[in-house]
């Protein structure tokens, strides 16, 4: 790997300063499971690496009022082990859990997964479907933004120089609200998602959907919030007709590419399939959360 400087600040201010003041490219280091791969392949050549892991609040999960707060650099194993989060957002946890191998889980974080800017990131669709916000620290102080505003294109984020994601905030789920995330990969593990789909639904006592968000990954330059798919669900139970309209809405929202992982036609078709399957799981989970 090319030579680089490294610093591990212990306060958020110091981290902001280090990132903002760097003459050359400065990169945030969270779990490192994307950054180191990209440094080795030459895709990125930072002059400075700023390690987030010693910053207070960046690693850990806590409840705060009617929100759940997840530190940006929290590794996957900690997220999967958190019973409270798993009960509240099984879809977020399963999305995080699908990132890479057990070894990757020991390090990978949601902030890293998000800010890497891959349309195929597994943790991002369910986090967006949960209507999460990201708290960003930077030279101008802190700002809180919807997670979907962070990624602007493949490998691109809306973060300015000196900014980084401190934590994610999700609203505690309502009664009969739950989520699910599914992805398609050619093997059973270890692949980047060819298609990913997160479904977050709220049901009433009769099982009719009163609120929904459907988010697709890997089928467009950024994650896609499929408004028509949500409309297909709201006001309905998950019957054959609803599933058909959901499938069609998911497919219609795709703007995929053909690459070494899948073709355009394939991604479109499978987006519909996963939307149906993820919705079925989300509905079942939501109904159980009376």
């Amino acid at each position, binding site marked *: 790997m090319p030579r680089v400087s*490294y610093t591990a600040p212990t306060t958020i201010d110091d981290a902001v300063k280090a990132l903002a003041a760097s003459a050359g490219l400065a990169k945030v280091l969270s779990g*490192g499971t994307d950054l180191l*791969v990209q440094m080795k392949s030459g895709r990125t050549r930072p002059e400075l690496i700023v390690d987030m892991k010693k910053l207070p609040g960046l690693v850990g999960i806590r409840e705060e009022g009617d929100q759940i707060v997840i530190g940006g650099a929290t590794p996957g194993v900690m997220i999967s082990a958190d019973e409270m989060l798993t009960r509240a957002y099984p879809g977020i946890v399963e999305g995080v859990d699908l990132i890479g191998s057990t070894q990757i889980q020991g390090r990978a974080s949601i902030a890293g997964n998000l800010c890497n800017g891959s349309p195929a990131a597994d943790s991002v669709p369910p986090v967006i479907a949960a209507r999460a916000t990201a708290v960003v620290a930077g030279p101008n102080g802190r700002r809180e933004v919807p997670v979907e505003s962070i990624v602007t294109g493949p490998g691109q984020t809306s973060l300015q120089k000196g900014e980084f994601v401190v934590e994610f905030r999700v609203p505690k789920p309502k009664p009969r609200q739950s989520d699910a995330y599914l992805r398609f990969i050619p093997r059973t593990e270890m692949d980047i998602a060819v298609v990913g789909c997160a479904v977050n639904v709220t049901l009433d006592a009769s099982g009719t959907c009163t609120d929904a968000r459907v988010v697709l990954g890997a089928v467009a330059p950024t994650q896609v919030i499929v408004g028509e798919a949500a409309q297909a669900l709201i006001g309905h139970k998950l019957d054959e007709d609803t599933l058909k309209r959901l499938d069609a809405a998911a497919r219609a929202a795709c703007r995929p590419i053909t690459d070494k992982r899948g073709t355009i036609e394939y991604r479109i078709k499978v987006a519909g399939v996963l939307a149906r399957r993820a919705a079925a799981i989300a509905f079942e989970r939501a109904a159980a959360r009376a």
Partner: protein
Amino acid sequence: MSKQHVSTVINGEPMEFLCEAQQTLLDCLRDELHLTGSKEGCGSGDCGACSVILDGKLVCSCLMLGVEAEGHTITTVEGIAEGDKLHPVQQKFLEHAALQCGFCTPGFIVAAKALLDENKNPTEEETRYWLAGNLCRCTGYDKIVRAVLDAAAVMRGENPPSPAT
């Protein structure tokens, strides 16, 4: 560019080394500390041959910088046995012939130990998914999975018959 000094505990021993910031933990283990048991199979976190346990968590040492190890506790394959007493995972790998070329074996031993530290009674499926980050090209995984399940049984105090005669 001057080197950074890192203090860490490896296999129960305090160890220090000097490294450049861009050297991975794997580079440091192998080239600075001469612990060559951890292997580089891919350098990109896809094969698991470099697996170590960091503060109780299974990780790929090729995806960590050596400087990130400062203040942490690491177990490598060299620290799995206790002196000349093999860990049940190691013993069962030998009995089941769960290795052919042996290159992926250190990574599997570390990963399997991490599994059994966390889950005393894994199913075959749980074992396979836990180990999905460790590639083996020689064995087809069959004997590896059997060895791990048998080691789990031994660690639970059961006495599975050994295939080695």
